């Protein structure tokens, strides 16, 4: 049937006039209007992420100020200006930096210990099957458990000191980091795994040389979540259980000032917590992100 179709088609095809070939010279680029034009200043400013965020922050501060003035109740809701004053005072007297530092110190200890524990657990999980089961079991058991719920126990075990705070911090950091790191490791492409083994890498060198960088986007997410969890837990622990170490941290600062009805100072304490959060997220993690996953093209 196709044979017949072709026979009727062939002469027709041959009859069709042969179309001439075409050749053209490209026009010189100078003849174009725009090949590449720089963006206007407004467009370029809009492209700066930090600037956009700064404008948003300013708007939020303005809203706060206006609402507080309209409410006109400094005991319930002080103005942004009054908070800023209390904040400046706290900085000048040295109490706020001191409190913040003692919080951060405990936080960093707990964070580092939590990450170390998570590292051990995940390395165990990717090297052995029992390790995987253990990690899955432990995460499903302990991840939903609020770290604060463990504090009374920790106080009995480790006493009124940094020890018990570090314990609950480890608990709050460990599961988030371990879970994300493990799922990151599982998501590493088979080709990259084969490349690593092709180089003759094994054991810890394989993990540090291939798995960790390849899974870095998820590890970074885990680290961010862990950091936020640690902050929350620490401030809450200080608020609920008051002073548990020598000088007390930011949570204790907030609690103390609430008792003395120094509401602007309470706001200044909260403001400091927020400020540190913003700084860590937008400076520390952002820099790490830019230098690693963004640079490597793993995240756009």
């Amino acid at each position: 049937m196709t044979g017949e179709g072709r026979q009727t088609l062939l002469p027709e095809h041959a009859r069709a006039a042969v179309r001439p070939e075409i050749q053209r010279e490209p026009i010189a680029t100078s003849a174009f209007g725009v090949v590449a034009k720089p963006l206007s200043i407004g467009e370029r400013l809009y492209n700066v992420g930090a600037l956009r965020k700064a404008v948003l922050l300013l708007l939020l501060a303005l809203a706060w100020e206006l609402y507080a003035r309209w409410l006109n109740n400094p005991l319930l809701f002080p103005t942004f200006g009054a908070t800023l004053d209390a904040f400046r005072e706290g900085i000048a007297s040295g109490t706020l930096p001191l409190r913040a530092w003692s919080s951060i110190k405990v936080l960093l200890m707990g964070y580092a210990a939590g990450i170390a524990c998570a590292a051990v657990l995940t390395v165990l999980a990717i090297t052995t099957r029992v390790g995987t089961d253990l990690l899955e079991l432990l995460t499903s058991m302990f991840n939903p458990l609020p770290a604060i719920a463990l504090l009374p126990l920790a106080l009995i075990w480790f006493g009124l000191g940094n020890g018990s705070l570090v314990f609950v911090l480890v608990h709050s950091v460990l599961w988030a980091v371990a879970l994300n790191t493990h799922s990151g490791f599982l998501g590493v492409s088979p080709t990259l795994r084969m490349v690593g083994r092709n180089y003759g890498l094994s054991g810890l060198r394989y993990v540090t040389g291939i798995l960790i960088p390849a899974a870095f986007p998820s590890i970074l997410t885990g680290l961010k979540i862990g950091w936020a969890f640690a902050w929350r837990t620490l401030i809450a622990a200080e608020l609920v259980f008051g002073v548990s170490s020598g000088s007390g941290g930011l949570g204790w600062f907030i609690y103390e000032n609430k008792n003395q009805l120094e509401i602007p100072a309470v706001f200044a304490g909260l403001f400091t917590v927020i400020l540190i959060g913003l700084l860590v997220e937008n400076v520390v993690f952002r820099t790490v992100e830019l230098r690693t996953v963004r640079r490597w093209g793993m995240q756009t």
Partner: protein
Amino acid sequence: MTGSPLLDVRGVTLQYKTRDHLVTATYRVDFQVFRSERFILLGPSGCGKSTLLKAVGGYLQPVEGEIRLKGEVVSRPGPDRMMVFQEFDQLLPWKTVKDNVLFPLLASHRLPPKAAEEKAMHYIAKVNLAKFADSLPHTLSGGMKQRVAIARGMAMEPDVLLMDEPFAALDALTRRKMQDELLALWDDTRFTVLFVTHSIPEAIRIGSRILLLSPHPGQVKAELNSLAHDAPASAEVHQALEQKIHAMLFADAIEAPAAEVNA
């Protein structure tokens, strides 16, 4: 081609498990590769050629037969058999072109850092990427990434370079160019390469010797000599070989429809 073979594959049967099947990929495959050969594994998809290459790479063990490299049984992956994969994601995204080529040299403690760097740059220059030595992989085109992978493989100066359809994901023009470049590199260093492809023209262009495999499971159908790449044969000779291979590979496939037409 005298003396003992560099790579000796004898009676190799490979099997792998999927979720609910045990699949035999190749059945009692034999072949020998000698030094400086460009040995092609050619066959339709599903003939186990990639699996065979992975077995030579040491990623899976034969259930029957053995694979020997320089007399030693292959038991695990290693830098003496560098692999070039088909996928573009085989480069480490967190390392620059130079560091990608350098890393296996340092990881395997082949060379001291200084000499390793010189060697890496030498091979990067060979694949014409000297200008991009400090670029990160995601900024390169597909062809450039494959060239880095080839440079990385060659810089290790492995006993045999294993290439798993390295040009299959490239566009036709780039593929053609890469084939020429590979041959030029071979003229330069006379490395031994085991090359997997499903394209007959590519096999004839690149190979010095071609192993034809039948599908499901892969068995050796023939082992042919290809045409010399530096003394271009006439188009007819080329076409004749191409048709011969085509006929051998698809002999079974052609018989079936022919029977249908007759009926």
